């Protein structure tokens, strides 16, 4: 299963370093309950189907989303508005696109266009029966954090 997750981790690191221009460190993965309360304000959901089925979700807090928007568009935004959603959507789009390159070549996988969910403690409808997800925490410069969560079901083990 790691082989499906790693491309997303690499794509995320790459995009943050090269596009947003932020130093990024990946933390130790952990497991959490799917619907436990969380502190994230905005999430991008990338769906996967094929030999592995599920979703990869990138979740951020408002302040990091605003910083990223300012870096990408050059305009400061006061709060989570449409521009911020667009900017984060674009960022996740690029991450999905970069991960897609590695994944669709090597595995029988199809990756969907990302969708954005926002709002405090927003609920993500994971397309699976299982109740746990693997979270990979990232720290960017200034100690801000965001999280890449993965829930996948593989048709074949390996």
């Amino acid at each position: 299963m790691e082989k499906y997750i790693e491309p997303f981790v690499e794509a995320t690191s790459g995009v943050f370093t090269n596009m947003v221009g932020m130093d990024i460190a990946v933390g130790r993965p952990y497991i959490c309950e799917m619907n436990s309360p969380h502190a994230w304000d905005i999430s991008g959901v990338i769906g996967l189907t094929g030999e592995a089925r599920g979703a990869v979700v990138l979740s951020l807090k408002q302040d990091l989303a605003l910083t990223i928007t300012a870096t990408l568009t050059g305009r400061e935004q006061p709060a989570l508005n449409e521009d911020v959603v667009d900017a984060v959507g674009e960022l996740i789009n690029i991450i999905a696109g970069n991960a897609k390159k590695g994944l669709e070549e090597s595995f029988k996988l199809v990756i969907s266009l990302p969708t954005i969910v926002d709002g405090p403690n927003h609920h993500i409808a994971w397309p699976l029966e299982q109740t746990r997800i693997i979270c990979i925490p990232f720290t960017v410069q200034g100690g801000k954090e965001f999280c890449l969560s993965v829930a996948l079901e593989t048709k074949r083990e390996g």
Partner: protein
Amino acid sequence: MTSGKFFREDDPEKMDMTIRYVLLNSMIFVGCTLLVLFGIESFKEQAPLQGILDFSMAAITLVGFVLLRTPAPFIWSSGLTVLSFMGLCAFLVYTGGVQNSGVLWAYSFPLLAIFLLGIRLGSLLTALLGLFLGMVVLIPGFSPQKYEAAFAFRGIGVYLLVTLCTMVYEITKMNKDQRLLKLTASLKEERDQIAAMKDNLREALFLLDRQGTIQSQYSPILETMLGKTNLTGETFLNLLAPSLSAKERGLLEDFFAMVLEQRFDAAMLEDINPLKEFTYLPPGGASPRTLSATCSRLQRENGEAYLLCTLRDLTREVELRRQLEEEEKKRQQEMRALFEVVHVDPRIFEDFIQEMDYQFVHVNGALKNSEQDNRQTLIQVYQSVHAVKANAVILGLSDFAEKLHTLEQEIKLIQNKEEITFQDMLHLTVEIEKVYREKDTFEQLLNRIRSFSATSSQLQEEQVLVQTLERTIKKLCHELGKQATLSVGTLEHGALQQLDFRLLKEILIQLVRNALVHGIETPEERQRKGKPAAGTIFVSLEKKGDQLCCVVGDDGNGLCFERIRQQAERRGMRIEPSKERQQLLQYIFSPGFSTQDEADLHSGRGVGLSLVKDRVYATGGSIKIATEEGKGCRFYLYFPLEKNHSVAG
């Protein structure tokens, strides 16, 4: 010569038309030259009428020559030429020509007309000219020349003969052409059918000659299977070379030779076929395929022996088969798990699941704690996995225990690495998540069992504890070939209420295991020492002032300081003789200590006592040990009563 026209190679009329074009061209050329020469001569001989006729005929022929080079149908140009030639012949016959030779020209007409215009039109024109010839030679006064009757009949006779011969020849030729056409058509149809079969078969067919080279008429699907185009002339063995070991290659060469030899029975050859199912590595690093080849001998008409081979792509079949087997295995595992679970009392099983939940919260907490480095986390994860494994073994969930054992080994592998990478931790997390899923399955099983035995009596905590420890001992004795009984001393119910039950159980299990594995001797050894064959493990729990005192003891061999010291020294520990005992006692509680050389499902890896120490210290408690070599060992655990809930979550 064919007037710049080209005919398709496979056109059955190609040869025919080529000849017609060549003939018409040369006729126009020769005719035109002759006509011009005749014309000039006629003018010289003061016969302008004939001269003009000659020239105009030449001009018409030239038009035909030009027409032949345009896309206009062949019949236009040939018709024009033939008609002008017919006119010329008629004129020559009518005038008699030089020395009455005009009639002779007419004899060449049937040949040309029938050949160039075909049997119908050609015969018609020939008949017309013949009629005109007859009239000229037979009817006196019709033409300026006078012919004698004998000459006339001979002239007409020869003309008829030439016409007849030409017609017979043409008809024969047409028949032959038609037959050829039919034959070609039926051959083509057959070839198309064979090609269609060959091209659409899911098996690839091909021929190999004695040298093993692929012949040209192979199925196109062969290229897909072998992942290579233009296979004609390739050596089949070389194509397989990357997929075969040297030994296999030798085997295959022998097999081909045997097939070619014709001496061997087909069924026997099929039995020893080394290509019955093999993994093929296509060039260019595409994913491997599973192929199956069969070979048989084929004698061709030229006397050469060939190998007729078929190749089948089994990749999908093999994949499906593998999936089926996996499903079957999984199903069997689930069945076995169900049977294993059914034997366990639901109350104890529920306790096991709660224990797992507790340990997994612990594991997750360790993973999530970003303050802590990977090595520290790994130790905690390992302890929890080990504790769950111990419980699984006690309950007889051997498959699950085996999985946890594998997980332990993976953790150990990561721990032994110089540098622990993100990938290692991700892999570990994924593996842990898989174990979590297994727990979910157990939970579902438990719920199902509960629905069957809703009325079963609820066991008291003391009973659960005692039963669990008894199971532990029974199980381990069986595995280790030892004998031991559990002796329960004071077990204050009130004391039990004040301590986290799960924590206590975990600690007791580890200590009991420790006593059995390291303390109690084998029955033979015990008898040699004059002890009863069955050892005794003693457990008690009571309140002593503001502390809870828990005692676990055995009448085994006691701690062997010599062995502990040896191991400590092997690990590079410096031991000061004055504090030797104290240092060694501390050492047995450190992670990684074990006097067993190899870890197995039941003990080893030295996690047991370090876990006990961590858990007791976490409550703010303390540990004392009393040991006497040859007599036994006792662990005294003290838990403060106020703080004992600090780790209960």
